[in-house]
């Protein structure tokens, strides 16, 4: 697994990290605590986890993919309603887990501040986040385990184990999972927005209560009936290459993929469709099963029409810059818009005038 140690900066001489402890008291304190136990390699500089300005060679692409946790089908976990494997049904759940793990990495890296960041290794950051996703721990130990996600999905939208999710429904469910299991440490918020509209007041509210909040914004959209029109390609690329992007939950038809960037007019994705054995903990021997420097490349024309665009803001300033960028996308004439920002959600007041006496066609009047 030597190649999986690829990093944007340089190879690291990583020492074995002390096993991450799981605590029942929410995960924030657990993660912050384990950060202090990371390897000490002050000579290695940690590079920002953000989209490289341009992915124009395979080496950069592989290094970038290796930075983003890879979640796959797992088999051999404790039974979830009779299922001991999620092969054949869990791909969208795994895709959402990848996005969440990547986002949480950004969140905790920011919260640690610039001093600690200097000595932080990407591997250590990933190792501290990954226990939050382990299959066999539930509730507060691993808030984003497949078990928790399926349990909430069943309650919310009647999608239990074995059911397929779409980018839209999984977004709703992970928001609920976060609200429920992350209530004690509420510095990480998830907001989902329908209809391609981001409401500023809802995002701003996240930063009003606690300034140190992080806000994951998910915008699920369906971009076409059968395929994605070319007029949206540019917007998809702009969204993916935005510094605050947390990728896109998408895929090919009935085949979920986590889109992390684009390269040569194609999408770079992490593919969850590999079955691996479930792991009980994240350690040096199991860690490589969460790393994959070989992303799957797909063309825009193969993409499924349903996509959820994800952005992560660490603070109000970042949110403001996101609004500004999205507003600038809107004003571009040559490409069709995808996402808009609005001040607030105004509920529509309308009345039917069905009683219009002059009306003699079989139309319904609105």
């Amino acid at each position, binding site marked *: 697994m030597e190649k999986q140690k690829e990093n944007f900066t340089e190879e690291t001489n990583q020492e074995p990290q002390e096993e991450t402890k799981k605590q029942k008291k929410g995960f924030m304190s657990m993660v912050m605590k384990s950060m202090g136990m990371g390897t000490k390699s002050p000579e290695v500089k940690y590079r920002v986890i953000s989209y490289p300005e341009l992915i124009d060679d395979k080496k950069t692409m592989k290094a970038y993919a290796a930075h983003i946790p890879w979640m796959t089908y797992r088999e051999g976990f404790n039974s979830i309603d009779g299922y001991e494997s999620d092969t054949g049904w869990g791909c969208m759940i795994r895709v959402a887990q990848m996005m969440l793990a990547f986002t949480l990495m950004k969140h905790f890296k920011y919260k640690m501040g610039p001093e600690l960041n200097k000595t932080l290794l990407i591997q250590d950051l990933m190792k501290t986040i990954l226990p939050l996703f382990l299959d066999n721990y539930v509730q507060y130990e691993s808030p984003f385990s497949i078990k928790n996600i399926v349990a909430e999905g069943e309650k919310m*939208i009647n999608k239990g184990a074995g059911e397929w999710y779409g980018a839209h429904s999984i977004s709703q469910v992970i928001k609920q999972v976060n609200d429920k299991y992350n209530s004690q440490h509420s510095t990480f918020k998830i907001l989902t927005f329908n209809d391609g509209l981001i409401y500023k007041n809802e995002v701003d509210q996240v930063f009003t209560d606690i300034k140190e909040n992080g806000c994951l914004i998910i915008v*699920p959209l369906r971009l076409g009936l059968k395929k994605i*029109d070319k007029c949206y390609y540019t917007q998809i690329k702009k969204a993916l290459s935005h510094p605050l992007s947390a990728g896109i939950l998408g895929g090919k038809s009935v085949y979920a993929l986590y889109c992390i960037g684009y390269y040569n007019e194609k999408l770079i994705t992490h593919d969850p469709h590999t079955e691996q054995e479930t792991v009980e903990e994240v350690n040096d021997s199991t860690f490589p099963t969460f790393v994959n420097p070989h992303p799957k490349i797909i063309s825009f024309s193969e993409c499924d029409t349903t996509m959820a665009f994800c952005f992560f803001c660490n603070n109000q300033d970042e949110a403001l810059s996101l609004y500004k960028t999205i507003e600038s996308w809107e004003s571009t004439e040559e490409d069709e818009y995808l996402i808009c920002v609005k001040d607030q959600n105004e509920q529509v007041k309308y009345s039917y005038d069905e009683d219009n006496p002059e009306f003699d066609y*079989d139309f319904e009047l609105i």
Partner: protein
Amino acid sequence: MKDFKSQPLEKRKSDSKKVLKKFPTKVPIICYKDHNSVLPSLEKDKYLIPKSLKVLEFEQIIRKKISLGEKEALAFFVNEKLMPKKDSTMDEVYAQNKDEDGFLYIVYMEENISG
């Protein structure tokens, strides 16, 4: 909507002309679910909607009519593309996308799912 389109073009043309004349502040649309959709169907598919109605308002009305919760996925398409900006008026959408028969065709659909 195959049923509606199976009517002769001339009849559809004269229908749309009549209603546009009689209701100058409204536009005639045909709204229906995609044939692959599992969402509920609308009771009616022919609507006369105020020209000033915003796209978002229209979408919310349809969502309510098919009793779909706020959190469920719903997307609308005109001519195979997403509806224009949400604060456009239905008059603008009509002017740019109406069919030769004088009706505007709007299709709705849920999300795709993957396993």
